């Protein structure tokens, strides 16, 4: 409904459809400042993120429309000079990839708002921080200027500190500090890389620039690429939970409140993969070629390592955090495989993991909210007492172990098929290692399902747990629908992504 209205508005006024992705959350935040109490706060943020979702959906259609008539790399571009001296622009634009990720963000954010419907402690501040985070993410996905991108990146990361610190549980201060420092440290490394790229962006003569599309036309000298690719890659990949820099994620997730875990695992961690792809690999292709092997080792290790790490965990959130390490390791792995199919898989995996893990955290939150424990050994037979939540949990589990009919499958298949395009023993072994992760994944997922959901009811107190509420249901469905949709009819999505990969192929391969 909303998006029709909005779309009409845009058609008529032909406004800059992308900047709204930043302005609307900002306006929502401003509105939130004047709210009083939980009721108003949540309504406002709900409306805000609903509009956002509307815009995202509208964007998808608009994108297809535009794509038909416009075959430039980025569409809906807008370019405003910001700092003339440094040739910094507020430059935005989207291609299929960013459109998909924007949609993901919009959905997850809305779901997050629903999930935190009963956030009693400092609700206003909570929603504000949540929306600041989302603003950062939106901005990151739409910007095609390294500086702007970097700014939004940090805007997205820093609210995590307060979100975990204030509303978290357990050793929240510790986790929050650890998470923030590791991510900011990474972004610090990234900054050097970005500057490196910037000062080599005039290699073919011409002015220094931060604009990704312009840099992509430049042949940055190989020495520079060799030096700055690792910096840029690691800088982003830490956020993508690259082994061995993933340790912030288990603690962070475990301590974070539900909605935050959702946003963080579902959306924020995608910035990592996206950045790696859009910046590190797109701008420094030869560097990528050169360091390929090294990071493939790390990524593949991460995949299998995360999976094994998850097997023995007791805390639901830890399990999920480690599975994220594994799944996102898959993303990085696929990106490094340097071919179209694998890249497509990587993007699909980002999306599908975004939805799945968000769903997982939502469910964990509900279970925790009811049973007040996340220790699976203390839980049991939940299928009997909270059938809906448990059933969805099973489905999410099956989706995450790559069952056909769900998003995970198509993503992984693309990755594997893509990875298999690379001849050579090294690639083969790496591929087979990562493929074998699907078995381990099955093991830890079914372990949880077996212990927690099935079996006899362990605790008498569980026999009368409150059933699922409407807002919880809404949140769940918001996330479940895309998972299934992607899994059943992947064609349009994967094709949208595939044709956006062309420039990368020309640049990198």
């Amino acid at each position: 409904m909303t998006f029709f209205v909005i779309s009409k508005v845009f058609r008529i006024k032909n406004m800059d459809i992308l900047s709204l992705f930043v302005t609307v959350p900002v306006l929502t935040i401003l509105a939130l400042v004047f709210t009083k109490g939980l009721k108003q706060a949540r309504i406002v943020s709900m409306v805000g993120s609903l509009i956002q979702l509307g815009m995202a959906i509208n964007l998808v259609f608009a994108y297809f429309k535009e794509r038909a008539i416009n075959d430039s790399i980025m569409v809906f571009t807008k370019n405003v000079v910001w700092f003339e001296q440094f040739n910094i622009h507020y430059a935005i634009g989207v291609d299929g990839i960013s459109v998909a990720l924007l949609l993901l963000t919009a959905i997850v954010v809305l779901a997050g708002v629903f999930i935190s419907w009963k956030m009693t402690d400092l609700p206003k501040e909570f929603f504000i921080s949540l929306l600041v985070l989302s603003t950062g993410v939106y901005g990151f996905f739409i910007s095609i200027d390294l500086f702007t991108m970097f700014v939004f990146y940090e805007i997205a990361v820093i609210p995590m500190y307060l979100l975990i610190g204030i509303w978290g549980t357990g050793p929240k201060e510790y986790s929050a500090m650890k998470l923030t420092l590791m991510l900011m440290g990474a972004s610090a490394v990234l900054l050097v890389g970005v500057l490196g790229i910037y000062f080599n962006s005039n290699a073919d003569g011409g002015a220094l620039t931060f604009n990704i599309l312009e840099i992509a036309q430049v042949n940055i000298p190989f020495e520079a690429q060799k030096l700055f690719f690792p910096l840029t890659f690691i800088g982003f990949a830490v956020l993508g939970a690259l082994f061995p820099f993933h340790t912030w994620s288990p603690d962070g997730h475990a301590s974070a409140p539900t909605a935050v875990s959702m946003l963080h695992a579902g959306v924020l961690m995608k910035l990592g993969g996206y950045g790696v792809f859009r910046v590190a690999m797109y701008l420094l292709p030869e560097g990528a070629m050169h360091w390929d092997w090294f990071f493939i080792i790390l990524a593949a290790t991460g995949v299998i390592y995360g999976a094994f790490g998850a097997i023995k965990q007791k805390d639901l959130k830890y399990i999920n955090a480690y599975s994220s390490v594994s799944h996102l390791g898959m993303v990085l792995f696929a990106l490094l495989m340097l071919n179209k199919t694998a890249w497509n898989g990587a993007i699909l995996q980002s999306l599908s993991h975004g939805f799945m893990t968000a769903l997982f955290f939502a469910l964990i939150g509900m279970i925790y909210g009811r049973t007040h424990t996340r220790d699976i050994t203390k839980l049991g037979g939940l299928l009997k007492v909270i059938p809906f939540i448990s059933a969805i949990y099973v489905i999410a589990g099956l989706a995450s172990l790559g069952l056909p009919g769900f998003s995970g499958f198509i993503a992984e298949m693309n990755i594997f098929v893509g990875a298999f395009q690379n001849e050579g023993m090294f690639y083969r072994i790496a591929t087979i290692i990562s493929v074998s992760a699907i078995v381990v994944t099955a093991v830890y997922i079914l372990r949880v399902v077996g212990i927690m959901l099935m079996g006899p009811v362990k605790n008498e107190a569980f026999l009368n747990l409150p059933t699922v509420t409407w807002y919880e249901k809404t949140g769940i469905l918001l996330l479940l629908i895309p998972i299934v949709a992607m899994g059943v009819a992947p064609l349009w999505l994967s094709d949208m992504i595939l044709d956006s990969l062309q420039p990368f192929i020309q640049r990198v391969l």
Partner: protein
Amino acid sequence: MNFTYIILIPLIPFVVFLLLGIYNKKIKPAVSGYIGVTGLSTSTLLSFYTAYQYFFVHGKVNGVYQTLVHKTTWMNFTDTLAIDMGVLVDPISIMMLIVVSIISLMVHIYSRGYMKGDEGYTRFFAFLSLFSFSMFGLVLAANLFQIYIFWELVGVSSYLLIGYYYTKNSAVAAAKKAFIVTRFADLGFLIGILMVGYYTGTFDFETLNNPEGSAILNWASTSFMGLSVITWALILIFIGGAGKSAMFPLHIWLPDAMEGPTPVSALIHAATMVVAGVYLVARLFPMYYFVEDGFALNIVAYVGAFSSLFAAIIAITQTDIKRVLAFSTMSQLGYMMLALGVSGYDGHEGVGYMASMFHLFTHAMFKALLFLGAGSVIHAVHSNYLKDMGGLRKYMPITNATFLIAALAISGVFPLSGFWSKDEILVAAFEHNKLIYGVGVFVAGLTAFYMFRLYFGIFWGKNTQYKHAPHESPLSMTFPLIVLALITVFSGFIPFSEFISADKIGFETHINYPVALLSSFVAVSGIVLATIFYKKENDLSDKFAKAFGPLYKWARDKFYFDEIYMFVTKKILFNSVAENIAKFDKKIVDGTMEGIGNKTVVVSEKIKRMQSGKVQDYAFAFIAGVVIIALVFIYMLGN
């Protein structure tokens, strides 16, 4: 000739599944039962209609049964490689349609009685429909990836159905085991698919199986460790099949799978899903046969033979009737694999192929019958164990009769269906590989023996005193028994080779009398032996068991394979690897990150004395700083 309507066959059960799944709580049990049955019977009718259309209306085109494919792109991998969704119609897929639909329908009907009053009634039917959907999809799959997709789906529905009694820990464990073992096998399958896809550039069965196609002709192009990569791929794919069809050594999940409700065992773990492996090999038969002169095919043959022997031996010693049947299933599947393994391609050479499909068909019928019969017994005495049974023939005549028919059939007694299919298999083996033939014959004997051990153990033997007298099951349960019994009796006379053959041309089959006589003799002697041991209550069997001593014990404990697997997974993988990785992560990886942070703080503690609060120290630092800097840089300036 358009077969697109075939997609209805899987879709109807799927719709039913969604219906029952989503409105689980709202729909009354009785209603859901009807919905399920109706849905499935529609599919069944359609299947039969299709079969009729295909074989008799459409028939052969210049002497060959055509392979008809209707497909649409589902997802693009590369410019050349894509996953299609479609239906592939050829003799074996039709035959599988028939098998699946009949058994599934029977089981549906049967379950209405068997599951009556169970709280999860609707859920049960939902899962059954889900399974039927996946199985139909599997048999109709037009390419490797599609078959893999439904392969996984049947796997998961089997998981759900084995774990149907999810409050029972044993059931949960069994379900988990089944899923993970098959998943492990599927890993091989998947890698195989990837290799095929990469080296042949297609997933489509049509292209792959074309004997003149590039896929088959260029098998030698790339090789790895002395074998063609294609061969490796086929071996890996066979691993997948072996997992589903419970071939040694991936069989361990099948016996435990009996934790599921008996109709499920009948449907999934006897008649349909477990034959998927056989079907897969049959699907790719031309590849198996032509690539590297059937190297992979030999592996199939030997694995099959060994499994059938191995399972038969174990079956003799089991006391849980469902487990006996489970092992017998495994052994029969071995038979089918063996048959495929020894088969040739064109004309009468391909008898093994035909026989295997034939046996698949007949076995599905009488094995389902056996399970359903066992189910009705269990229903009556509320126990799975032979020791709680005996002399039931008086109480439940129909079950007794049907069970007997099935037992005779599986033992291969003339003129029941089992006889014909088994005979063809032995013929094929006899013509190609004497060793395997020997194994086949021996297994035939064993089969007859353990089946009648079972039969007598249930219906004759000691006259157990029951607390409340067991009674014959209701019509809803006995009806399927009768139907299946009839099929078992007569299906042997179908001229199978007319319809199904490796080269799709079809050929005449004649009974090979020596083989037939020998096998019949073996079967009968097996039966006789069993009669002596078990018809009347006596201690012969125990003496006999003692005579074998340890061998018997090992067989009874399934040669300790579960324990070995347990050791590998639990001890090594989980407790060593996973545990240590978890530790490693906390201690080392996280430790370093922590360490960096803590070190900084420590350092700042260490250097705090510099800020001593004494102006003179500051001044000293000041002067020293200036002097040092000055000296250093002047020195540097010097050179």
